[in-house]
């Protein structure tokens, strides 16, 4: 390995790392801003994915909704003729209604717990969750409900199969325990039942269908379906589009996204100034040494490579430490708060990577400019 590696890189490595204090400050600065960026963006990613949890869990190919819908839970009821219309569209294989609403569960200790009720189409149970226990067909049994085993499950006292409870003063029996991909943002438990039972348990407004879930005949039919639905004054989006619609709303309409971006920019600037300055000091302190290397016969291009190597090595070390630290922190936070919504996504890592790349780039650019300007003669003169 050693012999494979260019000696000038070993030299660059030693010059950098042997300056303990400065190397630590450099890596520390980058670790710090990586940590902040990843922490902030992953928290946000966690919140966003929870905000779209119903979309992700139901996983329909196409969703039809009122155009004014911003978040999944703030659905706006659709008149029945919309369902009929959608079913009549060429290219629709089938279309089913989805109910989504809130109810109150009375716990054994007499207190009430708000829950989200999702009502699946009685004929198809389209959008059904995967069950850990029980069987989905049992939803057709009297008063059958499936409870989701997510972070909120314990708020209902973690009811097992056959447990009974009262939902809006109606009897309910747990016939299944479900496992879902993503838990919700609202911090309330989720129960699945049939569409018809949902609207009979939950007092409703005139229109009870929150969403229409559409299975197109072919993926290529989606565009036509969207256009037809739009001509009726409603909105049809794919699963992914719905997720980004919800995300964008949180990002740009709630202030959360703006704040996060502001914090990200601040941590970027902090990291850049700590690392940039330390790196510049490192270059300045070694200026005469770099000059001596030049005098001895190091080419300008090699000096540049050496400095780039130092900057990139430092940046990647800091990136690794920052990401590691953040992952560790999320892990520890989860031990104490099972609900903690943070999710390190590839996008977050990419953002952090680009950020440290820019920090390394700016720092080495400043360093390189300085080093290239050194006159070996000045070194010679002492």
């Amino acid at each position: 390995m050693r012999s494979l590696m260019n000696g000038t890189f070993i030299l660059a490595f030693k010059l950098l790392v042997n300056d303990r204090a400065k190397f630590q400050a450099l890596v520390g600065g980058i670790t710090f801003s990586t940590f902040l960026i990843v922490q902030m963006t992953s928290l946000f990613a966690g919140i966003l994915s929870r905000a779209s949890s119903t979309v992700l869990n139901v996983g329909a190919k196409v969703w039809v909704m009122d155009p004014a819908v911003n978040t999944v839970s703030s659905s706006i009821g659709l008149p029945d003729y919309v369902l009929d219309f959608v079913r009549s569209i060429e290219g629709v294989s089938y279309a089913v209604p989805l109910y989504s609403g809130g109810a109150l569960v009375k716990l054994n200790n007499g207190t009430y717990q708000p829950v989200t009720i999702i009502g699946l189409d009685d004929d198809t149970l389209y959008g059904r969750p995967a069950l850990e226990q029980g069987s989905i067909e049992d939803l057709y049994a009297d008063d059958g409900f499936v409870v989701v085993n997510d972070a909120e499950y314990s708020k209902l006292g973690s009811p097992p199969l056959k447990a009974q409870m009262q939902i809006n003063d109606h009897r309910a029996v747990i016939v299944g325990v479900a496992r879902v991909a993503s838990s919700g943002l609202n911090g309330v438990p989720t129960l699945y039942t049939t569409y018809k039972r949902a609207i009979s348990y939950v007092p409703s407004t005139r229109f009870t269908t929150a969403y229409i879930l559409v299975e197109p005949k072919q993926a290529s039919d989606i565009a036509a379906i969207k256009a037809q639905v739009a001509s009726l004054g409603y909105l049809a989006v794919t699963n992914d589009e719905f997720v980004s619609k919800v995300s964008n709303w949180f990002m740009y309409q709630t202030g959360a996204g703006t704040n996060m971006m502001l914090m990200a920019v601040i941590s970027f600037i902090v990291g850049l100034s700590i690392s940039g300055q330390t790196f510049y000091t490192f270059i300045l302190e070694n200026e005469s040494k770099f000059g001596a290397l030049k005098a001895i016969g190091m080419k300008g291009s090699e000096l540049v490579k050496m400095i780039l190597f130092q900057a990139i090595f430092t940046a990647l070390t800091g990136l690794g430490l920052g990401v590691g630290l953040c992952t560790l922190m999320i892990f520890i936070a989860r031990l104490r708060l099972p609900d903690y919504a943070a999710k390190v996504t590839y996008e977050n890592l990419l953002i952090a990577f680009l950020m440290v790349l820019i920090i390394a780039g700016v720092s080495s650019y400043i360093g390189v400019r300085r080093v290239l300007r050194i006159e070996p003669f000045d070194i010679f003169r002492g």
Partner: protein
Amino acid sequence: MKRIAIQALGLQKWFGDGEARTLAVQDVSLDVNFGEMLYIVGPSGSGKTTLLSMISGILRPNAGSVAIEGCDLWSMSNDGLAELRLNRIGFVFQDFHLFPRLTTAENVAIPLILRHEPWQASIEKALVYLKKVGLESRADLPPVKLSGGEQQRVAIARAMIGTPDILVLDEPTASLDGDTGRNIVSFIKNELLTPQRTVVIVTHDARIYEFASRVVNMEDGRIVGISEGASRA
């Protein structure tokens, strides 16, 4: 038969512009031969370092030319010059310029590393050269742990490791006491000077004049005399 190593013709160098312009070297022509130990002496500010830098490919003259074995230095590209310095010229700076965060051996190995020789082989060769200057026991220490004379010997080992045929030293004894300085120059004379090599020393240290083959006297940027040294080549 004298073989010319370096031939300087009509060298001029000035610094600054207009009123502030100083002529550091004016119309200097000089031959440096292989096998000799040439001294450049003169008062401080007389242009010795400037001249040494121009003939060793470090400082571009405003006028005149320098040829090393017939090859015109200052018509070369910067990279070409760097390569020539790396392969043919060994430098010893007045202030040593050793890397404080590398070991003594690593410092000595630098010219080989710059030539892309493998790291481990370069370090091993550095140990050989450290032994030549009597410092093999210091190989793993940082240079700051060494005395001034020892550091200067490290700098000499670094200059010699690439077996250059031209060795230039700027005031190598200035920061050393008399005996140490004499020992070092005597070592250079006895161990390093060969008929295929030339040594150019800038100095105003009278204690080492006895080792010179020829002495170039400078004043105000001009050569005011060249005399045979006490130790003729």
